[in-house]
């Protein structure tokens, strides 16, 4: 963790020095106030005042996601997330939702590759309620056989409604990850196999809670219309006496380098049109190539002006749509393990996956040989900045970014300078990144076609 942070800073500095005499139309510098500290039990705390509206976001992010769930227990990190709403010492089953909503708030949780979060947005004078609720379940989750059974049924329905009863069955995530990665921690189905979800025992739940849901494996973030000093006192009162836990060694998440293109063919019982998913392994976030790759993703598939969209949907009329990006569920900052850039496109009947791939490759070859124009790059940076600001619009949006920066870089203050390495990317770096990473040997392709009807 610390090593990653240092490399990141060195990289930023290097890029800055390299480009010291190049000027761009930069954004006004951000000035988001952030107070950041750690409690003696290891809990990271980030607080940011924002008085634009009488609301506050209270979020807890745990440093555990799909990648760390136990073998034979696919989907467990997410099942566990559900268990966090089943009550704790002073909050009965599902009463977390009652307390938050009856006090004018909303709430949710989300399980991702490398984190699981729990958050509520509340009227800002109810901030302490949010802190109390989060502290109660961090300290004393109530785990019962009956509630586990209930949530296994609920999560099974979630998997049916979002995966098994749907055309395409999330193949651009679940199948693509299973094929693109070789390390089980990265490759396995994070939504989970129904049999494995239902095989989870109450001991599994207790052990996972004990291991990963400790204050020294979490960040608490508060953003909104509050007073920092008052919030600090409340945090001390509710969280300081939750004991820390020894952290197990993290499993090895590294991937062996890919040396051959992977091609997979699938049939789909429900889909009416064929679709294609493509994943390219990305350089790690602390690589000097990373900001260039992020801008390249923007240039290739970031919006309707992008090169792949224009080529596939408009010029060649091969595909209906184009979605995807650098991190399937999130952004550049809210993950920490190996990642692939994904592209998903529904193509038209009568065409083939090879035709689509050929056109995508032609676009990449053009960038790898001729590069991008200065205007294209400058515009991509404007788009990138605009998207970044949108992430900061809500108190929860800001809390999300601060939490990720605290969890993975131990430095949420970076929120104010996060854009800099991306604003400093050059056309030459984009060209080099295309040539280096967007090669066939670095990718996995899944062609998913409707199952042939027997009555035809």
């Amino acid at each position, binding site marked *: 963790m610390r090593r990653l942070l240092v490399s990141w800073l060195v990289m930023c500095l290097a890029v800055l020095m390299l480009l010291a005499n190049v000027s761009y139309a930069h954004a006004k510098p951000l000035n988001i106030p952030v107070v950041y500290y750690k409690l003696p039990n290891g809990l990271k705390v980030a607080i940011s005042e924002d008085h*634009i*509206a*009488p*609301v506050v976001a209270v979020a807890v992010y745990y440093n555990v996601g799909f990648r760390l769930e136990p073998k034979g227990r696919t989907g467990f990190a997410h099942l566990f997330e559900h268990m966090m709403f089943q009550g704790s010492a*002073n909050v009965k089953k599902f009463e977390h*939702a*009652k307390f938050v*909503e*009856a*006090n*004018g*708030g909303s*709430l949710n949780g989300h399980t991702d590759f490398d984190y699981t979060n729990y958050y509520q947005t509340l*009227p800002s*004078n109810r*901030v*302490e*309620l949010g*802190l109390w*609720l989060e*502290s109660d379940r961090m*300290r004393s989750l109530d*785990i019962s056989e009956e509630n586990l059974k*209930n*949530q*296994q049924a*609920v*999560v099974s*329905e979630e998997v*049916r*409604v*979002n995966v*098994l009863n*749907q*055309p395409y069955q999330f193949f651009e995530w679940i199948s693509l990850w299973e094929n693109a990665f070789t390390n089980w921690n990265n490759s396995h189905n994070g939504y989970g196999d129904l049999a494995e979800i239902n095989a989870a025992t109450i*001991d599994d739940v*207790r*052990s996972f*809670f*004990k291991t990963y849901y400790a204050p020294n494996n979490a960040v608490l973030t508060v953003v909104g219309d509050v007073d920092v000093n008052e919030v600090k006192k409340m945090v001390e009162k509710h969280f300081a*006496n*939750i004991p820390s836990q020894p952290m197990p060694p993290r499993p090895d998440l590294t991937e062996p380098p890919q040396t051959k293109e992977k091609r997979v063919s699938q049939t789909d019982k*429900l889909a*009416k*049109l064929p679709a294609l998913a493509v994943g390219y392994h990305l350089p790690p976030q602390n690589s000097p190539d990373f900001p260039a790759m992020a801008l390249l993703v923007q240039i290739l598939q970031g*919006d*309707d*002006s992008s090169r792949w969209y224009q080529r596939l949907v408009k010029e060649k*009329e091969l595909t*209906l*749509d184009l979605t995807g990006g650098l991190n399937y569920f999130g952004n550049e900052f809210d993950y920490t393990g190996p990642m692939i850039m994904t592209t998903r496109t*529904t193509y038209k009947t009568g065409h083939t996956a090879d035709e689509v791939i050929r056109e995508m490759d032609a676009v990449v070859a053009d960038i790898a040989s001729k590069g991008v124009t200065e205007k294209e790059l400058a*515009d*991509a940076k*404007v788009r990138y900045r*605009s998207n970044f*600001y*949108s992430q900061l*619009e809500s*108190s929860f949006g800001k809390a999300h970014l601060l939490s990720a920066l605290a969890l993975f870089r131990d430095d949420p203050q970076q929120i104010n300078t996060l854009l800099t390495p991306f604003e400093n990317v050059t056309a030459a770096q984009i060209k080099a990144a295309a040539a280096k990473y967007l090669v066939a040997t670095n990718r996995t392709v899944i062609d998913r076609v409707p199952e042939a009807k027997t009555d035809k």
Partner: protein
Amino acid sequence: MKKLLAIILFTTTVTFAQQKTPPPPGPARPLNLPKITEKKLANGLTVVLAPLPNVPKISSILTFRSATTASDRDAHPGIAQIAAAVANEGTDTRTSKQIKEELRSIGGTLSLGSDADSTTMTASSLSEFSSRLFDLMSDVAQHPSFPQTEVKLAQENTIQQIRAGRADPGFLANERFQKAIFGNHPYGFVVPDEKSISALTPADLKAFVGKYFIPNASHLIVVGDIDVDKTFAEIEKAFAGWKSGTVPPDENPPVPRREKRQIYFVNRPGSIQSAIYIGNASIPRKDKDYFAIRTADTIYGGSFYSRLTRNIRETKGYTYSPFSSSNTRAKTGSFLAGAFVRNEVTGPTLLEIFYELDRMRVLPVTDEELSAAKEYSNGNFSVELASQFGLAGRINTIYTYDLDKNFINDFRPKIEALTTADIQRAAAKYFDTYRAAIVIVGDWDKVKDQVTPFGDVTMYDAEGKVITK
């Protein structure tokens, strides 16, 4: 042994002191209600501005109130949808690609959509480029050129997208529900058929836009990091040349009334879940019962701690995400409750959805439930107003449905005034289980015995054709 150890380790973590009861709220914070300025251009365009400098961006909605899916529907079914899809694919002076590239260079978005009450253009950009965004919006509103190649591509792609959508149970359930509630009324329109789409020409689309995209039946909302005077001057410059037109007559007739409970079953062989949508027509947006039905919905199934979620998710484990919603429009609205459930519990889910609906109609909600629902509405209203598109969307409903201009400031007092009797009266009237439409998308052979006790069944295929059982 292993199990025992785990329990001991677990219990050691609960021995520390912890507060047993929820902390009380602090003193209420100022609401910071938005300052809204309304102006009018000489051509009749209403302009509404609200500063919200949470990020250096602006968010805008331009609503054409006359361009609805009812407009010209007899001559050209589906024309409003295709016009909305293609209007930003070329103007007299810009190609599709130039529009997309201009949007990228201002960090912007611009798209259009239509429904039975209006067509809306939704757009945003970095605030430093606001005048360029207004130029683009104005160009798309006044001079869409509907290039032949773009129209043809949109026709082909829309047809394919609708075909793809027919594999999705949610799409099928919504389509059948709207048709069940609203019949042949324009509100029952979801997507056009392939023949209607193919028949449209660029000339039809140009004529449609010329007739219905007119400033004197439109309003422009701009929210964000703006200075009201400077922004208004930019808007005036961009939109002053837009010529006013004749406001067409309202083409939405009154909505037919349903007379009995009926099951509309969309057969999807092989389905491992039943998608269940139950509901009926309700009230127009301006109706005095708006707040009562909205709050009844919150208590019934519209919030996480709702009765329906507690029952069929947290107690019975039938479903992941049960829901209900109150959707109100110009002429009428609908109330909808639903869930996606495994085949084996289709009948039991119907039973519980109806039980909870009837409970709301027959018995008053508790004071505690009502007070919680009020807090929920008020608190989440503040969150909505703190986002640029949240506030813009809320202002847009005021102008689209001709609501009281004080709607935002009056929201809290109107919610606070509700009584448990108001909620029961609204539920009794609008949670009309006796005349409910029951839409199920699922595998008929697997669930028919569970479904038939609830009413007469008409069966459809995924294309919407009536089929025999």
